[in-house]
């Protein structure tokens, strides 16, 4: 092993040439210490087929012509939350970082061959609908009312890209972010945003992605902004690592809200005036954690909120158990999706905390759904909502 690197990052060209190299060794099924299975799909189905290796071998079977496309094959490809535990634990460097991309690329093939499952198809239908432009089927909000409410300019240094989940489902999170940005005196505005395309990229329905990215980029550029901030882990991952595949310009910087908060804290500009006297456990969103390797910033923030006692769940950071919402699992397999979230809540119970915090509206949605369905009695709040509960002072943030 070792030596030259022969896989280029150009996945489009290469994924079909490398997929057969998966050894099927199964490291990808586990947590770091092998104490438990950490691939939600394998843990649920238990057929080798549903392990990452099984999925990759199946994909190779399709490429080599040993298998034909059908609904069942497509189902195996879609029964994966794209959580990235496999990338974290596969031992083959220069291959492991491509695993989720390979699964998504194979989903694109499924779509091309007419085997996208029905539930997931709804995502693209709603996003393409000119009344909606979002996967929730809500009427598009052009955000003008919010601009007015928060007295936001047409041109600004920053764009707050709200994201569909915060704008249509987790409005408390959106509003907490708006209040924070205002208070921080950030020179920002909103755009008439259309979906970032995370749900359709993750489910292989990429036909209209380029148009959506172009549209959003155009809207961002119209404001003259050089920075985009979002409080959604999914949007953040998509803008930062998927958009560049379509628009490689570097004039726009992408931030997650927690990065701004952390900077303000580091510079001594954000000072909390009240305490938040609670034990909290933090759930790493896959799209922020394993996908973007952002583990410490959210924790550093929570640890600096007076009164907070942060208690880690057994599986944390790169080892975290997925919330079960991603990769089209929430819409495609609603029952299984909350089962996955339930396992996370059960793990959180062991920390003896009553509050789970995260940095993703989609994780918040699914953890909340499980919380209600299984009557687990947690409070689930985004970091920005916790901060919104406090008195704080921000000085000179510009």
């Amino acid at each position, binding site marked *: 092993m070792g030596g030259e690197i022969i896989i280029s990052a150009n996945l489009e060209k290469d994924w079909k040439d490398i997929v057969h*190299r998966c*050894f099927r060794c*199964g*490291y990808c099924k*586990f947590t770091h210490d092998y104490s438990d299975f950490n691939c939600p799909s394998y843990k649920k189905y*238990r057929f080798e087929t549903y392990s990452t290796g099984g999925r990759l071998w199946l994909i190779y079977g399709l490429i080599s012509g040993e298998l034909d496309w059908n609904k*069942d094959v497509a189902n195996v490809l879609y029964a994966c939350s794209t959580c990235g535990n496999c990338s974290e634990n596969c*031992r083959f460097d220069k291959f492991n970082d491509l695993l989720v991309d390979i699964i998504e690329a194979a989903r694109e093939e499924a779509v091309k061959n007419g085997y996208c499952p029905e539930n997931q198809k709804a995502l693209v239908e709603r996003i393409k609908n000119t009344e909606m432009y979002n996967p929730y089927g809500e009427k598009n909000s052009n955000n003008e009312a919010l601009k007015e409410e928060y007295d936001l300019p047409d041109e600004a240094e920053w764009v707050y890209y709200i994201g569909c989940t915060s704008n249509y489902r987790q409005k408390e999170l959106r509003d907490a972010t708006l209040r924070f940005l205002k208070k921080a005196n950030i020179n920002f505005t909103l755009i008439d945003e259309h979906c970032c395309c995370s749900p359709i990229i993750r489910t292989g329905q990429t036909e209209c992605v380029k148009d959506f990215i172009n549209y959003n980029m155009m809207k961002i550029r119209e404001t003259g902004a050089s920075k985009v901030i979002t409080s959604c882990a999914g949007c953040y991952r998509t803008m930062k690592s998927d958009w560049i595949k379509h628009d490689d310009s570097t004039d726009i910087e992408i931030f997650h809200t927690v990065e701004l908060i952390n900077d303000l804290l580091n510079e001594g500009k954000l000072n909390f005036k009240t305490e938040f006297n609670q034990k909290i456990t933090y759930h790493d969103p896959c799209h922020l954690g394993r996908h973007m390797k952002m583990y410490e910033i959210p924790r550093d923030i929570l640890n600096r909120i007076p009164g907070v006692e942060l208690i880690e769940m057994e599986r944390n950071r790169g080892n975290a158990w997925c919330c079960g919402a991603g990769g089209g699992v929430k819409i495609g397999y609603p029952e299984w999706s909350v089962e996955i979230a339930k396992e996370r809540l059960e793990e959180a119970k062991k920390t003896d905390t009553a509050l789970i915090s995260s940095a993703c509206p989609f994780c918040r949605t699914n953890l909340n759904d499980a919380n209600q369905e299984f009557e687990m009695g947690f409070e689930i709040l985004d970091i920005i909502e916790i901060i919104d509960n406090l008195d704080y002072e921000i000085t000179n943030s510009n």
Partner: protein
Amino acid sequence: MEVNKILNKLIEIVGSEFVSNNPADLYIYSQDPGASEPRPVDFVILPKKVEEVQKIVRLANQEKIPIIPMGGGLTLSGLVIPNRRGIVMDMKRMNKIIEISPLNRYALIEAGVTSGQLLAHLNNNHPDLQPPIPDAPPSITIAGNALIHGSGYLSQKYGDHGSMINGLEVVLPDGEIYKFGSCALSDYWFTRGPIPDFIGLFISSFGTMGIVTKLSIKLFPKPNMRDIVFGLCKDPSVLPELISNITYADVAEDILLGIQDKPDWMKGYTFIIVYITGETEEELINKTKILKKMYRKAKSRYMKVPKRIEEVFLEKPQFAAKAADFRKGGGFEYVGAFIPLQLIPKMIQIGTDISLKHGIIPTLGARLIGQGHSAMFFISYSFNRADPKDMKNARDALHETNKAALEIGGIPWKAEIAGQQLIMEKMDPNYKKLLKGIKNLIDPNGIMNPGNWEVK
């Protein structure tokens, strides 16, 4: 076979979630990561309880459908790919660690417990105990490994993993549960004897005798410290005596040999990798001194390696799957042959010659078993999984190696069906007669992993 009727009966036993005859699910069970060609599967089933195993076996017996028990499926030699279609029984849902007995030093586990699971359980709950596990990936099962005479980092000192089985619970083809070892008459699964020992029947019989549902495996005290003393040897003829001396001095936990032609600087050398353990730093220093002296005396030399490399070798389990030569195309299979120490130089020659003949970079080595009583010598052939010709080339090399190992007096380990036939060609006829008789007695309908150990 009435497929739907059988499927419905299997569903009745384990529920519809855990049995399938859907081609998408069967695909991966029709092949393994080794060089064998795919072979068709009819059903795959994942039982959770021993009662379910019994019902499946009874049904298979009634309908005369083959059953192929499978653990991690990582033996590489096609042993879990059906030879005559049938039901692959994936055991990994039976994954309870039933008891760890620290004082009596055994773990009583279900057959689907993986090596990763047991290792982590002990690390987290009994940090002073360690399990006998191979350098195979952590997704293999303890049962699958012990049942094929597996070996690992404790085997030099304590023997192969088959010998570490204290007791078995087995569902035989008649559907009844049998207990072997002390558990047949005692609550303690602490020893195999002192009663007639049938456990050997289930080791290296590749699932042809019954389905193991529980086993008790020995655990061992974990020393405080562990280190490696690397040696470099140019003349393989000195190896048997050097290794024998090391075992005499009783300084080694594990002894591995490695020979490989790539990278270029490794060519022409045998790397001697001796693991030492101790309670104190001083003990390790003394053992290192003894080994350095032995290396010198055997015209070999001590080799200092960077910490980074040492850490790779100290990992448990080692990341041995890297032998898959990922860049070439992801596949490898090896002949492991059990040989007496004295045959090591000959095996090095054989392995190198066959590899070169087949255009494969020589990658071979050995692990000592039982304080010098034998060695598991491996010759590894990598191949490109996407190239059928390359896979055939590897299969040919494997077959040739099995033949050569047998010719010089070794015994191929976990051999493919073709390798098993070679072994039986050489086997004492009365051994074969007895094997056939026992198999017929236990499994008159020949449902257990048929094709394996078939006396013609």
